[in-house]
């Protein structure tokens, strides 16, 4: 069995001297020449991730400024796509709009998506273009600290207007307004701190040690149940770097319009999408490669969404639309992947755990370090951990908050009785017990501006930035999310610990500030239904 190796797109300076990129471009061109009714066309494949096409009026009148995202208005889509002739409904029902975001299926679904298109591209490269038989999808590692190239830039093969033979470059996208990834640990920067997570999700086995999310968040999101209501929890790798990079590559033009990569329902139209996801997939493989991290072993993860009565993952294999159905269990390993009844194997030329970060986060929420910070002697050997942690609301803001220009401020009033429980937890901590963890949640964030970022501050201390990738879709009433918007959860335990150490734990409110990185559309705004503060105790 051959093992295909996915290589760095920046090889040969990221130009068309890199054969992986040249053959990719040629094969993409073939897929783009096919009409959308063909399940092996570029356009059909992009719609598998998500589309603003069916019906044409999908972007509702409440978001008039976003009509430019409607596929009929996107100049990058070639006329050969014939998007006015959409495929039969049985095909669109089976394949389109499948992307798994803010779920614990994010990683396995995208792995299958890549494998599927990689096989179609390879088939074109070998049988139609007479190219190399070992071609594999390259990855774009924007976090690479190479001294040879500035790899946070999009490889030049994606920005050149022409191919070496003078033909138009199919990898060049007019509606891509970002070109560089801001990396680092400053606000709104992409990094790979997620690679230090040790827990796949809250449904993982072995159970996480400690209260709340012991490392702050989970690698691949909260457990996804039978309904995908608001409040789903985006995993660390999905938020940063994945969502961050989408927003940065999509970027904004002078009219403050978001580029294709910045919005889930247009993202997969951009050929750089698949290289971005190959990198995310590479990071997952590297995370598994350490031997210390395990994917979830829960049956409902292994079986996939059909465990909860939802659709199976399905990818078209040929122009007839014959499907490959797969589960997370099938895609757990890159060298033993169950693909369409066979075993498929691929690897990456670099499986280093991290490319940017070389040390764990400086302020982790690990229990032992938290104990040290709070002056509690090492007790975690005698503390009995439980899997069933109690979660309780302790405070909330009143009324809907609006971010009109670039920021808003709110007072989150705390419930006296509930907050006393938090205080008490600190004082009983020297007994074998763990002080509460405290989380802040932006609930029901609605609007557009998908490529934008929000930064959250509590009592003037910076907590974290989040990307708004997917905000428009989540805000649409008659869409998958039912208009619930996005929910963002922040672990603010560090700030509460500091308040405790400063003797200010008995407070009646917290001051929360939310800042948008970029100014919003004129007349547009982002709304936040509520800011909630929760305690999580053992």
């Amino acid at each position: 069995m051959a093992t295909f190796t996915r290589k760095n797109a920046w090889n040969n300076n990221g130009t068309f001297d890199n054969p992986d990129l040249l053959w990719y471009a040629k094969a993409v061109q073939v897929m783009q020449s096919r009409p959308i009714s063909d399940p092996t066309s570029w356009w059909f494949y992009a719609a598998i991730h998500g589309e603003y096409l069916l019906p044409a009026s999908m972007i509702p009148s409440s978001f008039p400024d976003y009509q430019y995202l409607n596929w009929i208005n996107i100049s990058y889509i070639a006329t050969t796509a014939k998007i006015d002739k959409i495929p039969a409904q049985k095909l669109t029902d089976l394949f389109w709009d499948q992307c798994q975001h803010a779920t614990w299926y994010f990683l396995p679904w995208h792995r299958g998506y890549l494998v599927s298109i990689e096989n179609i591209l390879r088939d074109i490269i070998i049988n139609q273009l007479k190219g190399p038989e070992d071609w594999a999808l390259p990855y774009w590692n924007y976090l690479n600290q190479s001294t040879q190239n500035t790899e946070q830039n999009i490889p030049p093969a994606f920005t050149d207007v022409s191919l070496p033979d003078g033909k138009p470059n199919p990898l060049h996208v007019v509606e891509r307004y970002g070109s560089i990834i801001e990396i680092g640990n400053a606000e709104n920067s992409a990094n790979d701190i997620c690679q230090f997570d040790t827990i796949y999700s809250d449904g993982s086995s072995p159970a996480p040690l400690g209260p709340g999310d012991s490392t702050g968040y989970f690698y691949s999101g909260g457990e996804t149940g039978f309904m995908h209501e608001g409040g789903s929890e985006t995993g660390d790798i999905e938020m940063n770097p994945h969502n961050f990079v989408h927003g940065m590559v999509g970027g904004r033009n002078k009219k403050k319009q978001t580029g294709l990569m910045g919005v889930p329902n247009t993202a997969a139209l951009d050929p750089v999408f698949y290289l971005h996801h190959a990198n995310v997939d590479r990071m997952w493989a590297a995370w598994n490669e350490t031997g210390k991290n395990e994917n979830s072993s829960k049956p409902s993860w292994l079986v996939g969404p059909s465990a909860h009565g939802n659709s199976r993952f399905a990818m078209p294999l040929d122009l007839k639309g014959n499907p490959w159905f797969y589960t997370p269990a099938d895609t757990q390993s890159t060298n033993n992947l169950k693909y369409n009844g066979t075993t498929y194997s691929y690897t990456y030329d670099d499986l280093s755990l991290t490319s940017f970060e070389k040390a764990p986060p400086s302020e982790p929420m690990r229990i032992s370090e938290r104990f040290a910070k709070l002056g509690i002697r090492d007790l975690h050997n005698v503390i009995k951990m439980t899997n069933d942690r109690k979660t309780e609301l302790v405070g909330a803001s009143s009324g809907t908050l609006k971010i009109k220009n670039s920021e808003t401020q709110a007072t989150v009033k705390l419930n006296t009785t509930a907050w006393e429980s938090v205080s008490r937890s600190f004082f009983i901590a020297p007994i074998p017990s763990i002080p509460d963890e405290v989380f802040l949640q932006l609930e029901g964030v609605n609007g557009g501006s998908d490529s934008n970022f929000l930064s959250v501050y509590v009592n003037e201390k910076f907590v974290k930035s989040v990307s708004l990738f997917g905000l428009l879709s989540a805000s649409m009433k008659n869409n998958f999310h039912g208009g619930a918007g996005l929910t963002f959860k922040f672990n603010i335990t560090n700030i509460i610990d500091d308040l405790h150490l400063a003797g200010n734990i008995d407070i009646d409110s917290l001051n929360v500030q939310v800042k948008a990185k970029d100014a919003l559309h004129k007349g547009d705004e982002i709304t936040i239904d509520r800011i909630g503060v929760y305690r999580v105790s053992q």
Partner: protein
Amino acid sequence: MKLSWKNRITINLVIISISLFVWVLLLINPGHIMTIEHCHVSTSGPSTASLQMLLEMNPFSSQLIGWGIMVVAMMLPKLIVPIQYICIQNFKENRLLTSLLFVFGYVSAWMLVGVFMVGAIISLNLLLPMSYIPALGVFFIAVIWQFSPIKQRCLNQGHDHRRLAVFGWPAYRDAFLFGLMHGTWCVGSGWALMLWPMLLPNGHNLAMIMVTFIMLSEHLEHPQIPRWRIDFRTKLLRILVAQTQIKLKQVQGTI
């Protein structure tokens, strides 16, 4: 944020127990709280006398109570998800009261429409006593409604879990309004399905069980773009099948 596993199980058990208890009441029908079989009192067509006779034997109020009991039995399990949502969205001490207010608001919507439904049932029984024609007519309306974009719009709105105030009386107001709106969209999606069993001269209980399964199932589906679509919305069945398969595989040790 999610409720703890124990809290979720408690909510599930309480709600399902109440629903089952009310189902038993309905099926055994102690004291004839479900008066439907007594509606067919006249075969001589509608008249003031026959209406009076019917209302004497089946007071409007008792028919309305029967309607309310049926709503509670059939629809209470559907409220598990929103009640869990209310509980995590509220302070611990307010969880019970706000949950009750939500249920009260929800049932209020169904009771309000129940006045018209019971009126329609009485009228149809007077017009066509012991006839399957009204049931057949409503069945066709229900089928058309079932696949209509309006129904999908109502189902979509049922996923609208509004953010709740938590301090003072607005907390109670919001819980009640959430229930009222949730009930309104539920009525919008399921009024025809609920009316159909009530018009059946026979097989009423079986039809109610079928309708319950359909309604619970369709509310579990994700929101979709409203359009005409033949969609049987069998999610509850799919969940049961999938979970059974998983349990069997676990027993066999293949998962």
